């Protein structure tokens, strides 16, 4: 069989190439450009090499923010994934309850992120907030503005409130796709509730859970809007996550070179961790 070679066929990929170039590659390249140069204003730039990268990687500020970020992601994953699965398991499979549950679950996902922040910012205030005043009335010393621990609790509870639904909906989709025969066979085999979960439901939810973990990890690792609105990164720097720190650096301090270097490092870390997650989770369930 002879094949026709025509190099002009490469033009067919041009539209996609252009699209990706303008939406991703070119903006990224400008960041790369900033990250290797220094400026004193007047649009005059000097070659700085890897200096900014060295600065970022050797600064405590960066590693502290990174630590907070990893802790935050770990905590919300540890809460949201089990909680989401638990709620999905207890949602009705048929009848009038299904649409009600689905709408209720979808609601938090439909609210704009800064509005979520505002809701919780007001909700938690000790002078006018429902939560803040109730806790105060119960004699609990709660103040997310002054107390780092309270600030963390608030941000975490907010994220759980906002995003557990996503895990619920994904898990639910995985659950309803399991054919009835599996449950019937399990009943005939005398399987306990736990065994059904462990050997039927969990393996069948494997794929959707992978997606849920990936999405939740990436989102939480890049979190910005909600904690920014609620705590502004405070008290002190205790809720300053990488993205908040990045914005402070770039816009607050106008330190473009260091901010650009940090962006690149940040991006590579997310890419790397996502890849690790994906590889681990896809291999975990496979043969051998």
């Amino acid at each position, binding site marked *: 069989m002879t094949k026709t070679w025509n190099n002009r066929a490469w033009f067919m990929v041009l539209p996609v190439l252009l699209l990706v170039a303008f939406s991703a590659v070119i903006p990224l390249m400008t960041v790369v450009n900033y990250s290797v140069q220094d400026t004193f204003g007047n649009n005059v730039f000097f070659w700085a090499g890897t200096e900014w990268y060295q600065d970022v990687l050797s600064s405590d500020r960066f590693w502290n923010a990174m630590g907070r970020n990893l802790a935050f992601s770990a905590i919300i994953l540890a809460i949201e994934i089990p909680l989401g699965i638990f709620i999905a398991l207890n949602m009705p499979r048929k009848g009038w309850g299904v649409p009600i549950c689905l709408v209720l679950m979808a609601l938090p996902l439909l609210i704009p992120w800064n509005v979520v922040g505002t809701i919780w910012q007001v909700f938690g205030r000790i002078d006018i907030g429902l939560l803040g005043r109730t806790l105060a009335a119960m004699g609990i010393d709660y103040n997310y503005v002054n107390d780092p621990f309270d600030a963390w609790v608030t941000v975490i509870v907010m994220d759980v409130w906002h995003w557990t639904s996503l895990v619920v909906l994904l898990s639910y989709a995985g659950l309803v796709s399991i054919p009835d025969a599996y449950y*019937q066979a399990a009943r*005939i085999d005398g399987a306990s509730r736990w065994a059904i979960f462990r*050997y039927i439901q969990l393996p069948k939810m494997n794929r959707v859970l992978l997606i849920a973990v990936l999405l939740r990890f990436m989102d939480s690792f890049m979190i910005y809007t909600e904690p920014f609105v609620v705590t502004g990164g405070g008290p002190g720097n205790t809720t300053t996550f990488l993205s908040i720190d990045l914005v402070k650096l770039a816009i607050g301090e106008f330190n473009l070179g260091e901010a650009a270097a940090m962006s690149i490092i940040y991006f590579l870390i997310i890419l790397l961790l996502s890849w690790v997650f994906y590889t681990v989770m896809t291999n975990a369930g496979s*043969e051998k």
Partner: protein
Amino acid sequence: MARIDLEHIRHSYGARPQSDADWALKEVHHTFKDGSAYALLGPSGCGKTTLLNIISGLLHPTEGRLLFDGNDVSTLSTQERNIAQVFQFPVIYDTMTVYDNLAFPLRNRGVAERDVDRRVREILEMIDLSDWAKRRARGLTADQKQKISLGRGLVRSDVNAILFDEPLTVIDPHMKWVLRSQLKLLHGRFGHTMIYVTHDQTEALSFADDVVVMYEGEVVQIGTPDELFERPKHTFVGYFIGSPGMNVLPVSVEGAQARFGGTAITLPGKPRTPMGGAIELGIRPEFVRLGREGMPVQITKVEDIGRHKIVRARLQDHEIAAIVREDEDVPAEPHVAFVPEKINIYAGSWRVAFEGESERTAA
């Protein structure tokens, strides 16, 4: 192993059944003998799976009682009934090994690990999967998976019955034969009561001691493959079993003779009861003789299917099929005659017994 009695079982999927059509299962009253192999045969939607699920306890009948060895189990759950069921699509526990899959029903029942091991090895041997014991069940072929499903039933030595719900649907044709003969073998060896749902007559006739033919939510006939073939109790059984199905012709009956058009046909005897409804004569294509004697026909088609030929012809205004040997010639002026002993007479689609016939088929 147990005898299974169905006492006036009726089932409706709707809440308040009003008319006859609301019943997915119209009254079934029957006993499955201990240690026999039964096939529930019928077209899709005839209620056979409903009946099976009632026996296994996945469904609870709207009316009637179910007895295992004389004990009422109607209200018991599936676990408590202690039955095994193999489904249409193989159900396996993906993440477990083949060995653990088979051990699962025993471990769930708290059987000691030493006995589990003994039983599982025995069953692995029997279903030819010993070499696969340590493999994860996920990567197996459909027929291996179905063997595991079956094995999970066999592994419990005390099951009351093993139920099969069209278990060979997703199996490749050449493996169907293998699995079916293996199943027969296992039945012979263990003597479990087995009930096998299928819409495939070959499967039913080759598997079962007794075949239960169902049609529109009713059991129309229960019998050995021979009985179903020779004396179909309902014209539906005649059509459904056999290939091609039974020829059915409208006739009138006087004494021991039937009259079709202007021709008199000798019957094996005098029909016993006075008959209401439309009277029909049923004769299997295997017992239609093509020759120079009898009623003249016009041949419309001859299908050569190997060992024999199917001759399709017009007899007055009716289609009729006859099976002739491959080497037999079709005469130039063809006539058909019926083997008298093989004729059945139907009134309102139900068979009418002849005088002097044994009671066996009237069951």
